[in-house]
């Protein structure tokens, strides 16, 4: 594998770009792996990388039913932030953001992480009070970059928003995290895949799991479309399809529902928006940023009913377009380039699970709701730690399947046990 460096880029430029090798191998499937990660998305690849890097495991495979990064890894709106206030979430996402800040160097791959600020608009004195409370919590618990902005400061930083006096929801200020921002989602997939591959991890694409062989409380092997593989340990990291794998393993029900979330990108524009802007008011929800290519990348709420279909419905397109017009009326004549949907695993309290399971050698990573992208580095880090050491570290101890039995809900929104409400 050729490492990326300024010298290498220069040398390849002079010599006709002929010396680059494949970014990762296309290895033959072995009949046994010490650890098999099911799911070649961001969390699966990151887990494999940290299993090899932090824990020295080498006989590791990542199985992906399609192509790596073709699921939610390639369907999100690429926002990274850590402004979570609940105990557990707060520390977890703070760790994730620290890993993001070093990720390009760590992987020797430019993931285009851009800390351009996350600006959540506030529209009422009550919202400002709630944001102040939230951000006081953040500042006291290790997120020092929490800020509340007044209207003048906001107007200076983001001049194109709808500040009209007659606006239905006049903007009064914003809650801001400056270290938050965006990253190039495909680059994160490729970066983790390449770095994991360099450490000996086998990335097996076009390999769907079709059955789970058990011997009592152990998984012995996985049936796949490319044959049977025996496994020492197995980790599931398959986002919206977790329940299907879970029932293949004969494990019954989970505290999650699969819903679809749409995202949108416009035609490329000249630089217009330097930050991530979020609007949430009553029933409306909208978040937008501008990619380096110029496209306005934005999204809104779920489609509001359970679904495994990776395609969105039109009422939500209308909702999102209406929210876009109320936040940034200057987008009115911008053409939509593409819109799509991904299947997300919405959990009962809006928080995730990285935990052991009823089976001795099966580990679970699921329940990421809207927020799996930003969690990628920490999710991989702690899932690998769990699999390697066979015990949950304190960082993830509360994020297990039994927390509801203990009366614990890690519910940022306070929305209760209704998966579709945890946006």
């Amino acid at each position, binding site marked *: 594998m050729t490492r990326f460096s300024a010298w290498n880029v220069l040398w390849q430029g002079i010599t006709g770009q002929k010396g680059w090798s494949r970014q990762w191998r296309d290895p033959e499937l072995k009949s046994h792996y010490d650890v098999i990660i099911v799911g070649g998305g961001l969390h699966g690849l990151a887990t494999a990388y940290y299993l090899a890097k932090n824990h020295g495991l080498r006989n590791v495979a990542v199985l992906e039913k399609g192509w790596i990064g073709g699921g939610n890894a390639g369907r999100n709106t690429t926002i990274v932030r850590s402004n979570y206030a609940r105990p557990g979430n707060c520390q977890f996402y703070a760790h994730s953001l620290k890993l993001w800040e070093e990720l390009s160097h760590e992987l020797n791959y430019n993931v285009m992480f851009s800390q351009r600020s996350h600006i959540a608009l506030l529209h009422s004195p009550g919202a400002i009070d709630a944001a102040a409370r939230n951000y006081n919590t953040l500042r006291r618990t290790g997120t020092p970059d929490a800020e509340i902005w007044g209207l003048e400061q906001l107007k200076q930083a983001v001049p194109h928003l709808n500040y009209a006096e007659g606006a239905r929801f006049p903007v009064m200020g914003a809650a801001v995290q400056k270290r938050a921002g965006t990253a190039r989602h495909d680059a994160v997939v490729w970066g983790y895949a390449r770095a994991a591959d360099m450490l000996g991890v086998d990335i097996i694409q076009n390999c769907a799991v079709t059955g789970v062989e058990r011997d009592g409380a152990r998984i012995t092997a996985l049936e796949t479309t490319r044959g049977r593989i025996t496994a020492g340990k197995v980790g599931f990291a398959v986002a919206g*399809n977790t*329940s*299907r794998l879970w029932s293949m393993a004969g494990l*019954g*029900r*989970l*505290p*999650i*529902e*699969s819903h679809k979330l749409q995202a949108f990108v416009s035609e490329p524009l000249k630089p217009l928006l330097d930050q991530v802007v979020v609007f949430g008011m009553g029933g409306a929800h909208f978040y937008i940023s501008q990619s380096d290519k110029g496209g306005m990348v934005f999204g809104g709420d779920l489609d*509001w*009913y*359970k*679904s*495994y*279909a990776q395609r969105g*419905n*039109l*009422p939500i397109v209308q909702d999102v377009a209406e929210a876009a017009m109320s936040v940034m009326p200057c987008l009115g004549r911008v053409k939509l380039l593409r819109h799509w949907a991904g299947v997300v695993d919405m959990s*009962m309290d809006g928080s995730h699970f990285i935990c052991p399971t009823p089976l001795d050698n099966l580990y679970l990573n699921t329940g990421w709701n809207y927020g799996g992208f930003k969690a990628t580095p920490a999710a991989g880090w702690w899932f690998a730690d769990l699999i390697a050491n066979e015990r949950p570290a304190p960082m993830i101890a509360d994020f297990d399947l039994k927390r*509801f*039995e203990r009366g614990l809900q890690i519910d940022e929104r306070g929305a209760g*046990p*209704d*998966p*579709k409400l945890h946006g």
Partner: protein
Amino acid sequence: MIRISCPFCGPRDHAEFSYGGDGSIEYPALDAPVQDWHDAVFLRENICGLQLETWQHVHGCRMWIKVERDTMTHEIRSVAPAHPGLAAALESGQ
């Protein structure tokens, strides 16, 4: 857009309805063990395929209905009032 045939109002766009959730859940008796209530409130089968679910016609008659819908294709197999008495009354044409 999914079209749902409301038993009371006829075929309408799904945007008139609000999705309730898994319609196959049987809530336990009030004095049932905590574990039964935990399972009913927090655990879901999360079927990929045909599932029974509840919807409310919030922008129409406001009635709750039970819908059999495929969660992959969104095809609707059947629609009936959620209230068994109303379902029986509709069935017998009263």
